């Protein structure tokens, strides 16, 4: 097609110059011999040939404008993209947009976007087209990497096919390795204020055609245009990361301060309270053991027994608080969830029957082996049950299920009740120590439960709405429970039982 146009235009030029020469010689030289067709013809061909190069160029441009409308459209889209990106502050979104647009429009096999990561001091690929995330996320280039170094100093696009000609063979070889890793055939640097922010790495075209100089130049212009945008996005990203870190540090600090404060408080309390309790309980026990000699009436005996029992209860509160803040290395046994649930239900069944509460149990029969501290797990179940019983108040149901979720490798314990529910504003506070909604509550049940669950790397959440009942979901990773088995074997001292076993009955 282009040939036809070329020939027609050349013919036209020849014909025109022939006529021009003809008229010119006739009027100015009045010479007949000059008007010989042969001479005129030679002149016009000479003109046509000398014009050819220039004419061809314009024809090419015209031709492109009319027949390669599509490719023009692509350039237009990319220019527009550069302009539109101004509003994008999210680095990953920006990178995705660029590689995908390039990949689709220029019909590339691969395209990737590499950005400087200040924290790790490396250049890393943050988005790619035609490369799997698992693959490209591994790509991290140190700042002194040959390709990076060259891009920084050379500040121009690197084209794979030209590397061998532009650099000494050793450097060229190293750069070629980086081209391989990036699956690129040309690397366009993104430079802002003399700083190499990153690079746009373009792979081969599907059409198996090499990039032309024009293309490369255009890509380079594009990179120059988006450089300030990338710079902004990097700043925003850094700010976001710093913010996140700060928030994390802050929340850790709050959590640890709160815990240490409680631990200290509990230790202090334990010492101050346990001594008087020991005296009260001890004296009552001395009296009780003398009962055979003295022969008290039943009332006195009951009072003494109550004193012993209630002092133990008071001591339990502080002990519980401490027991779970110390935790490490307590005994681990295989947990039988069925027995444990049955035991717990038996404990609360009297109260439940009084209040007309129905208890439904659903325990998977084939739960995987799980190792943990039985006392701690009894604590979990008891706390959840007591909360449920107290929430239901009068007539209702409590449902408990223990299931194995094989996909997530999790044990899931759910305790639901049809009780009064918890107002949304209280749900967030449930795990805070000493938070309670009951007049006589201590506010440690869920706090302690959460501490235990966290120790087993599990999670606990409460789903509730006022008036619609409450569900507590505890999830425990199975692997953690298996690991405990190994730790259990390290326990060698048979005298060292868990703290709560040394209590008066």
């Amino acid at each position, binding site marked *: 097609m282009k040939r036809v146009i070329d020939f027609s235009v050349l013919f036209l030029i020849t014909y025109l110059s022939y006529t021009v020469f003809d008229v010119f010689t006739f009027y100015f030289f009045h010479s007949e011999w000059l008007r010989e067709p042969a001479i005129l013809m030679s002149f016009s061909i000479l003109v046509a040939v000398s014009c050819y190069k220039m004419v061809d160029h314009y024809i090419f441009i015209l031709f492109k404008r009319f027949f390669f409308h599509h490719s023009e459209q692509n350039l237009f889209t990319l220019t527009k993209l550069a302009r539109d990106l101004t509003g994008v502050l999210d680095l990953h979104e920006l990178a995705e947009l660029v590689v995908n647009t390039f990949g689709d429009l220029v019909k590339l096999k691969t395209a990737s976007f590499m950005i400087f990561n200040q924290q790790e001091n490396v250049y890393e690929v943050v988005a790619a087209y035609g490369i799997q995330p698992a693959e490209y996320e591994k790509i991290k280039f140190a700042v002194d990497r040959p390709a990076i170094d060259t891009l920084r100093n050379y500040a121009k696009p690197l084209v794979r096919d030209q590397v061998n000609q532009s650099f000494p063979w050793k450097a060229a070889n190293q750069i070629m390795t980086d081209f391989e890793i990036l699956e690129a055939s040309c690397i366009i640097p993104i430079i802002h204020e003399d700083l190499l922010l990153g690079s746009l790495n373009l792979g081969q075209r599907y059409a198996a055609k090499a990039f032309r100089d024009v293309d490369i130049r255009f890509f380079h212009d594009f990179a120059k245009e988006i450089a300030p945008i990338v710079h902004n996005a990097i700043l925003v990203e850094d700010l976001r990361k710093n913010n996140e870190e700060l928030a994390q540090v802050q929340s850790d600090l709050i959590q640890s301060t709160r815990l240490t404060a409680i631990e200290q408080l509990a*230790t202090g309390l*334990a*010492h101050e309270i*346990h*001594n008087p*309790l*020991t*005296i*009260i*309980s*001890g*004296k009552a*026990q*001395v009296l009780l*053991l*003398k009962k055979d000699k003295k022969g008290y009436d039943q009332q006195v005996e009951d009072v003494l027994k109550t004193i012993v029992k209630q*002092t*133990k209860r008071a*001591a339990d509160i*502080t*002990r519980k608080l*401490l027991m779970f803040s*110390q*935790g*490490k*290395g*307590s005994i681990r046994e295989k947990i039988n969830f069925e027995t444990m649930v049955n035991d717990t239900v038996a404990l609360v069944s009297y109260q439940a029957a009084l209040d007309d509460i129905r208890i439904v149990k659903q325990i998977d029969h084939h739960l995987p082996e799980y190792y943990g501290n039985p006392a701690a797990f009894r604590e979990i179940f008891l706390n959840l049950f007591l909360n449920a019983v107290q929430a239901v108040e009068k007539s209702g149901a409590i449902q408990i299920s223990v299931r194995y979720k094989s996909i997530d490798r999790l044990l899931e314990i759910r305790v639901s009740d049809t009780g009064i529910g918890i107002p949304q504003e209280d749900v967030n506070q449930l795990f805070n120590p000493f938070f309670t909604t009951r007049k006589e509550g201590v506010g440690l049940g869920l706090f302690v439960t959460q501490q235990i669950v966290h120790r087993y790397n599990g999670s606990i959440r409460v789903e509730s709405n006022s008036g619609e009942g409450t569900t507590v979901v505890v999830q425990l990773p199975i692997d953690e429970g298996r690991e405990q088995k190994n730790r259990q074997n390290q326990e060698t*001292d048979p*005298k*060292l039982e868990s*703290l709560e076993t*040394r*209590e*008066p*009955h």
Partner: protein
Amino acid sequence: MLKLLIVDDETEICEFLKSFFEERNYTVAIANSGEQAIEQLKKEKPQVVLLDIKMPGMDGIQTLREIKSKNPKSKVIMVTAIETRDKIEECLRLGADNYITKPLSLEYLENDVKEKIESAAKGN
């Protein structure tokens, strides 16, 4: 004869434990500090020592170390309000024969004391 030394800075605790054990035909000596305990130990030569961990001055752990360094065979039961596991582990490592938490169960304590005396008699 069954001889017992009770070490606690809280005199009331010493008193009721003394009356409880005397009722059961023990001879009971009392010390209100670690330093007193070491003295009493020399004087009274008890078969079993009940030793509180938290005391001002020389605490239970230091006292235990002292007792065991003089006579590794003496029987010591640690009494604790509530201690961290590390501390209890340390006591057991230092040779304490058992530990018991406050508030005390007197029945449990008596059985344990008896057991220690019996095992001492067997020469362990």
